[in-house]
């Protein structure tokens, strides 16, 4: 392996920098606490940074300091009320300043309640505790902004790992890797989530790194170092957000397939690599459960109350999850009357649903967006058709990525089914699919190549501009909604 292939290429670093700058821009455009659950995630960090302990309650009664600032910002009135804007007068700013001063002198340590964040693992929050402590003499808004910038760093890592993933998975045309890296760097949802305090930002980066490590192992073979890397990254995923559980079966399957391949040349000892990677992967779960059992707590602590993934009949649940992503089959109950869930929940949600899921584009934008989306899918299909023999030869690798994607989608569907029928699809939010950004990158690479040798590079440049335009107008939509 040459030093050139080992090192991170300059283009990947530029993609990372572009994603970092874009997410930092989103962090300035989005008002404080106006992204999904940012209040709860901030409370978790406050608890961890100020007391060294994890939150103990899923109540939304976060600390009185934070609530004071939220009131000063009119955050509760602005949230999910698109006609209500953020504070607009010098008088309101002065009142907010008073609230911030009171919060700073409040002397309340930590926030035992952290709402929906309380059941999440601590890695992201521990990292965010660093800027929180650095800015300990600043106001809550200064801390929040610094924490948002740390999330923006994870956007950079995500774009870089997407670049590296397509470099390993689709090595034929180096020019096209840049298309994937830059397009993902400008993906508006990545900017929104990585421009806020939310463990999703780290989850996207860790997931992209896992995809990259698997692609590298499939291309170059599984070594002990690579098995350990995949296992360690998987462990980081478990420590970042519970949603990673959806990707885990695919990752373990990947390790198994790679070990079986290695066994063809090095015998049964290759399965030790599976044990190494798998063991490292599940180690945080085992350690956490062991500590809880020894200390007389529920095996999975506060998480024990969270992962209840079934209710009612399995057939009904399977039908629900199917319809969440695909057209309803004959004989299935209609769980989404009047809507086509893949289009209205996922596609429209990806095209634009910002703020606290309260800032969409006008409906016509979703319809117009179908045109470039269809063009990209058609070009990708052409590329796959041309390379179908290669695709067959790599069926195992493609199958592993498919199981990872299906696992995540099934987890989101099963979680949503828990609150169905009271709520149609509580977790049908496009951001939950962003751990699959490397696959979007691969799709874009294939689309650019699908335009042919002559027009491919131009098509690639146009795809990047499409993402830049989407990103720019998405940020303007936020500006119009919150400050217009």
């Amino acid at each position, binding site marked *: 392996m040459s030093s050139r292939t080992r090192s991170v290429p300059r*283009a990947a670093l*530029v*993609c990372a920098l*572009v994603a970092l*700058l*874009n997410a*930092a*821009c989103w962090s*300035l455009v989005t*008002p*404080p606490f106006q992204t999904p659950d940012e209040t709860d995630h901030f409370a978790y960090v406050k608890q961890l940074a100020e007391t060294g302990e994890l939150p103990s309650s899923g109540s939304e009664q976060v600390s009185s300091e934070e609530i004071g600032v939220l009131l000063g*910002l009119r955050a509760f009135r602005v949230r*999910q*009320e698109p*006609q209500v804007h*953020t*504070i607009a*007068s010098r008088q*309101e*700013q002065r009142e*907010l300043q008073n609230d*911030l001063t009171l919060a700073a002198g409040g002397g309340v340590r930590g926030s035992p309640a952290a709402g929906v964040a309380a059941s999440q693992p601590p890695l992201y929050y521990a990292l965010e505790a660093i800027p929180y402590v650095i800015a300990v003499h600043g106001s809550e*808004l*200064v801390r929040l902004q610094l924490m948002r910038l740390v999330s923006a760093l994870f956007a950079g890592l995500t774009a870089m790992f997407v670049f590296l993933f397509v470099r390993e998975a689709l090595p034929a045309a*180096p*020019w096209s890797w*840049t*298309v994937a890296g*830059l397009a993902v*760097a400008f993906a508006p949802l990545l900017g929104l989530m990585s421009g806020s305090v939310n463990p999703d930002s780290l989850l996207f980066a860790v997931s992209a790194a896992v995809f990259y490590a698997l692609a590298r192992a499939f291309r170059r073979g599984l070594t002990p170092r690579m098995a350990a890397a995949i296992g360690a990254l998987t462990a980081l995923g478990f420590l970042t957000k519970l949603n990673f559980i959806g990707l885990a079966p695919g990752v373990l399957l990947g390790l198994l397939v790679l070990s079986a391949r290695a066994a063809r040349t090095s015998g049964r000892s290759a399965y030790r690599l599976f044990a190494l990677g798998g063991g490292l992967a599940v180690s945080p779960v085992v350690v956490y459960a062991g500590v809880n059992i020894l200390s007389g707590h529920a095996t999975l602590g506060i998480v024990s109350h969270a992962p209840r993934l079934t209710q009612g009949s399995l057939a009904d649940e399977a039908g629900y999850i199917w319809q969440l992503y695909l057209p309803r089959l004959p004989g299935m109950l209609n769980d989404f*009357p*009047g*809507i086509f869930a893949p289009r*209205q929940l996922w596609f429209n*949600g990806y095209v634009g*649903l910002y703020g606290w*899921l*309260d800032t*969409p584009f006008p*409906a016509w934008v979703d319809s117009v967006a179908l045109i470039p989306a269809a063009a990209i899918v058609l070009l990708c299909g052409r590329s796959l058709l041309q390379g179908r023999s290669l695709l067959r030869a790599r069926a195992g690798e493609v199958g592993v990525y498919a199981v990872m994607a299906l696992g995540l989608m099934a987890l989101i569907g099963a979680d949503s089914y828990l609150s169905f*029928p009271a*709520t*149609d699809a509580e977790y049908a939010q496009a951001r939950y699919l962003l751990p699959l950004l490397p696959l979007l990158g691969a799709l874009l690479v294939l689309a650019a190549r699908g335009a042919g040798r002559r*027009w491919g*590079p*131009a*098509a*690639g*440049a*146009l795809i*990047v*501009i499409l993402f*830049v*335009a989407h990103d*720019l*107008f998405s940020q*303007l939509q936020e*500006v*119009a909604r919150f400050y*217009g």
Partner: protein
Amino acid sequence: MRSVRVALVAGFTLLGVALLLTLLGSPMTVAATNKAPAGEAPIGSTSSGATYCQARETLPDRTTAIRIWLDAAAGPRVRAVVYFGGRAIAGGTRGSDWIGGSVTIPVKPLARTVSATTVCVSFQLRDETIVIQGMPSAAAVAAHDGRRPLAGRMAIEYLRPGTRSWLSLAREVARRMGLGRAPAGTWIVLLALALFGTAVTLASRLLLQERL
């Protein structure tokens, strides 16, 4: 390489034109509303399909959207129709991708204001619950579902494009963006522009240098 340069120039030119057209457009403003300063309160709820109608409304001229206070976790497709003398004179549909306390439904604008209209809003539901928000009123003037009156009148806003463009409002918007921050100030806007501009410049240079 040349094709990439041409694609970049063409793409960014198109983007610039779209941006200019957007900035020359006007934000929506409230032309009329029946909302009370005290705010809204629940006046009814339903977990099945329903049509609610409310008389004694006025549809202002150039109204391009009607906002109705329906509260839903994941809103269904909603249709609004404005009747005058028993005839539908305006109407529109909003898809099912809305959430929160109100839904905005685009309608075709009329050239003149029409008084004594009736606004009807319809939706199909199976499992969701929708809460209708409004102002308590006497049953005689309350909104009704065809069989019985609700506990008051639905809160409704009529929206139309304002007279000032986004471009002319830019300073005001920038000032507002700078509030609610620490430290407060329009530096936020300048920094955001610089960050995004740098990101686009870096991306363009990379596309050209990578010999696409």
